[in-house]
């Protein structure tokens, strides 16, 4: 049991932090949102030169060979500075699917481009009726000789407006909701039979609604095994959730610091408002929530690469549930303690709060995660759940 970072990890943490401190101001972000941009090419280049885009991949493909902890360090910094770059979509999710699921020859084509920043990808998975159910895939891929023809709609595809390629989940067997029968395909965004509508999310992230009208792809487009994509998707979504938890910890940390600073400077009734005991105790509770979220974010980062599915899912769902609850508390209190100023678009506070709220929704809110936390216990350890460690009755 060791929570300390390796020297290499500490260097990574420092270099991301220094880079963002210098190159990613709130004003830059604001102007990107105003100009409907998903990202900054310059920042992305910087990420590439720092090696961040290769974090999860092996050095064979130019990667860093990192895992959950390295991703956590990057994502926490991304949260701290409210960075909008498509790191989650391209590196963690699409890159992760390729890294875990693709054949070697596919990796050789795709990963180096991700690592050097020249290739952006997005993961098109959720559909209108999915809510948070990962298995609810209705989009169909029909075999036509060696080829596949994809028909259906995908929703809320984050960062897709800047992507060159998509990884798309489609049903090659069974019905929407079945765990089996889902296959992943890689699809070029400039496909003729692919329609889309672009829009922003409330946190500024840009997304697409996608319509596949008989998009034809070859057999080389399949990632992983046919009909067997679900375990792969679940694993990568767990990585994404752990990454979002780390981002949320970064966001909460900034909100906590901003609020503390505000309490020390804002004067009312002749004193800094931080002198009022009620505001002190509530700021303490912000800190406690932050530390609780951090503890479970660390746990998720440490367990997300585990081969033990029970352990992995338990850590990730617990962390995401905690981040949902704690994030809401910290966000709401940050606004309240800033008073009217907290309500303005001008201050960063509200923007951090919006990103936190978006994170709660992504891949399932706190209540959903708690239901999954139970589910997995029932699936994996029914006996342990209802039986005490001691056989109480006999004592």
């Amino acid at each position, binding site marked *: 049991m060791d929570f300390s970072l390796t020297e290499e990890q500490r260097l990574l943490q420092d270099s991301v932090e220094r880079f963002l401190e210098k190159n990613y101001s709130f004003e830059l972000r604001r102007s990107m949102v105003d100009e409907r941009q998903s990202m900054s090419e310059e920042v992305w280049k910087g990420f590439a030169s720092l090696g961040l885009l290769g974090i999860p991949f092996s050095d064979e493909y130019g990667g860093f060979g990192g895992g959950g902890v390295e991703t956590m360090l990057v994502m926490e910094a991304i949260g701290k500075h409210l960075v909008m770059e498509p790191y989650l979509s391209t590196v963690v999710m699409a890159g992760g699917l390729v890294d875990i699921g693709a054949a070697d020859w596919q990796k050789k084509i795709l990963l180096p481009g991700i690592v050097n920043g020249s290739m952006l990808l997005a993961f098109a998975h959720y559909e209108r009726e999915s809510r948070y159910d990962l298995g609810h895939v209705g989009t169909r891929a029909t075999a036509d000789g060696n080829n596949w023809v994809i028909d259906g709609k995908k929703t*809320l595809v984050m960062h897709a407006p800047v992507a060159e390629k998509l990884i798309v989940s489609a049903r090659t067997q069974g019905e929407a909701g079945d765990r089996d029968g889902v296959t992943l395909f890689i699809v070029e965004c400039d496909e003729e039979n692919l329609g889309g509508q672009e829009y922003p999310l409330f946190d500024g992230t840009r997304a697409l609604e996608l319509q596949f009208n008989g998009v034809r792809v070859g057999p080389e487009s399949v990632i992983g095994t046919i009909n067997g994509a679900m375990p792969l998707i679940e694993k990568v979504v767990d990585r994404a959730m752990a990454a979002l938890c780390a981002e949320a910890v970064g966001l909460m940390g900034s909100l906590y610091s901003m609020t503390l600073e505000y309490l020390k400077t804002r004067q009312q*009734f002749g004193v800094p408002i931080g002198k*009022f005991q009620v505001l002190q105790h509530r700021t303490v509770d912000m800190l406690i929530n932050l530390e609780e979220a951090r503890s479970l974010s660390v746990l998720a980062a440490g367990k997300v690469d585990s081969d033990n599915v029970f352990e992995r899912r338990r850590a990730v769902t617990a962390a995401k549930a905690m981040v949902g609850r704690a994030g*809401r508390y910290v966000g709401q209190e940050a606004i*309240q303690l800033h008073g*009217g100023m907290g*309500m303005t678009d001008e201050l960063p506070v509200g923007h951090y709060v919006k990103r936190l709220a978006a994170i709660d929704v992504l891949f399932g809110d706190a209540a959903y995660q708690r239901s999954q936390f139970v589910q997995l216990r029932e699936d994996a350890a029914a006996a342990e759940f209802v039986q005490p460690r001691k056989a109480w009755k006999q004592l």
Partner: protein
Amino acid sequence: MDLTFTPQEVAFREEVRAFTADKLPGDVARKILEHRRIEKDDVYRWHRALYEKGWIAPGWPEEYGGIAWNSVQRHIFDEETAAAGAPRLSPFGLSMIGPVLIAFGTDEQKQKYLPEILSGETWWCQGYSEPGSGSDLASLKTRAERKGDKYVVNGQKTWNTHGQWADMIFCLTRTDSSGKKQQGISMLLIDMKTPGIEVRPIITLDGEREINEVWLENVEVSAENLVGEEGKGWTIAKFLLSHERTGIAGVGVSKRELVYLKHIASQEQLNGKPLIEDPVFRDRVVQLEIDLLALEMTVLRVASAERDGKAPGPEASILKIRGSEIQQALTELQMEAIGPYSLPYLPLSWGENWVGQRIGPDYAAPLAARYFNMRKTTIYGGTNEIQRNIISQQVLGL
């Protein structure tokens, strides 16, 4: 004690309901019910309908054009109109400066301003808070210097709601800074078109423009526009703030939003069943429904006591606290109910004339923005922290 409504009250409810069904413009109701963007004209049309009916000023004495409803009637009116989707009337004329002028104004001021408040011809806004004076309102710094028969005003006001719609502003200014901060405050009525006034929008975190900064630079105001005595503005300010509380619990609106929440949760699906049938979600809805029922009964208890002649006391602070908390909880659950479709942010789609596609169900679009916007309810009108201070001092005696 009789908790059923009297036949007269039932008849009054029917009358309000029939009138509202007849006169509340359908497009306005639709905007309110679906949380779409409201324009001045939307509020104005409803204002005019009530004015023409003689129902515009239930809080005013009849001699000034008011109508003598008791507080239970006012509750019924609020509930019925809110349920039907009536917009909130602008409170600055009807609930704030109107009662102030009736209590403190000169005859000339009354004659000049009251009729146009009632008719809606003159639209008011408020100039209270300043960047440095929020909870500590009495520390305000906007100066008004007397020069002959005029005041010259310099300073900056903030958290000015809908100043872009207003013709007049009532403004707290400092005419003397030699004594205690509560002394030397004077209230002036200022035409928004006076040279030197600039209204600058403050965009809130939902991306909307509801509030403003008002900058005053050498703004000349006739001394006739002083309300009450010079230097006695703090008394007037406090009088006004106590009037601001009417209907502050927002029970009518919250009842409407609870129904809407159930509507959404009966449409959304979780694990193949309507979300409203999920026991965990439903338990939270029921908790909120019970909280709201308690708030409604508390409002009616206070209203009933007021009708029997007891003055409204600091319990208004309790109504403000719980009312705002419940409003926020409703927006939270609405947003949770729509799940991922709270994410798309298409503000144009909340306005009129939107012809584009929506992302997700129709009701989803404005709910996240509304959740963010409603964070204001625990801040404005005296933060909930200030309300708790008030109760602590005035009720608890601590």
